């Protein structure tokens, strides 16, 4: 799985070339949302990622300016381009009809843009979603999954091996 990069990350292959594993983005993040990989994979080691279940990204956009190489770029939060959230409608409280819940809608940093309420009730992720993972973090049903933008598992694997 391609990890969720911090906001403003260069596209896959370019990010890998540029990130020098210095961790200044993680130091700049006031929420400790950015985790530096401490594992053994030499392609991933030392690079930053966001794990929304743990701490999501609130799109404060302080990491972009901290990056010395342009692996992360200072962009507007609407161009953060981290990924997209997916709602599992078989588990969402509103969709299955157990409780009227719109926590994701209320907490979304791009409120009413990235998540809309269909007929005023059902949360729907729009194309404006940047994948910050706040909805995944706050969802009481834990039915939201944030994935790095539009990649099938096979495409993700190929990208890992050959670059974007």
């Amino acid at each position: 799985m391609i990890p969720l990069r911090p906001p403003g990350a260069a596209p896959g292959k370019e990010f890998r070339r540029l990130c020098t594993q210095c961790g200044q983005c993680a130091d700049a993040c006031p929420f400790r949302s950015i985790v530096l990989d401490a594992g053994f994979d030499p392609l991933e080691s030392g690079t930053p990622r966001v794990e929304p279940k743990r701490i999501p990204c609130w799109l404060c956009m302080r990491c972009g300016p901290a990056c010395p190489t342009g692996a992360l770029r200072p962009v507007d939060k609407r161009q953060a381009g981290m990924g997209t959230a997916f709602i599992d409608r078989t588990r969402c409280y509103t969709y299955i009809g157990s409780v009227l819940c719109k926590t994701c809608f209320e907490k979304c940093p791009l409120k009413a843009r990235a998540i809309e309420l269909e007929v005023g009730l059902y949360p729907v992720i729009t194309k404006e979603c940047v994948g910050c993972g706040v909805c995944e973090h706050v969802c009481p049903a834990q039915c939201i999954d944030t994935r790095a933008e539009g990649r099938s598992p096979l495409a993700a694997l190929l990208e890992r091996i050959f670059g974007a």
Partner: protein
Amino acid sequence: MNPRLKTVRRCFQASVLLGYPVLAWLNSQGWERLSGNFLSFSILGFPLADPLAAVQVCLGSLALPWKIVLGGGVALGMAFALGPVFCSWACPFGTLSDLAWSLRGIPSSLRKQGWRLKAVLAALACLALALSGLPPMLNHFSLPGWYSRIFQAWFNQQELALPGLLLLAGALGAEALAGRRLWCRYVCPQSLLLQLTHRFSPIGLRVRFDPRRCTCSRGDEQCGRACPLDLNPRMAGKGLEWECNVCGECTQACAKRGRSLTLGFGSGGS
């Protein structure tokens, strides 16, 4: 007879060292004709054991589990007949230790070639990474990098940067066994660019050697003994510059003798 014995022994040691990981992998795949580890092993069901492990089990449980008793007995029987040949023929740590010690006696000419090899490999790796679009992975060879990453990972996300810890421990361990600055000389690719810049600097700080003032006799070179990189400071000006990192230890040692080694800026020339 003797050299041949050594060859056979080395081959046996190497096969144990390299064979065990293969065996462990085979065991994990369900092949169990040879299984266990160096504490207790089974060869087609026939036991072999570390006698000390057997003694501990027997005393601790006040029982005599026949397999481990027999296994330990076989090992002791072998020692009874041949001596502790396990240590010289099979023990994988003994093999690694032999290997580390053999690095100690590397003559200086080979050491220089080792450094050159490192320089060529680092240049090729840099080029290959650039062409393939892979990340700047030479960074993983930066021990100062890992040193700082360990603390970042710990204080920011309460995580142990295990690869860095292992690398630092391994590098230090190897140096403790095999001599100083092994990593710096043969692995560290980060120093190469610094050395390159220094080599071609017309103003850089350098060690200078004035042979006319040298008073040390052959075999009594205080300067060489002082050098952390095992260089010969009396080669200053003749191809020493590449590796010398101008710590100044040799000049200090020489200050008590003939003061033929000094630090000075510029390309020198006496």
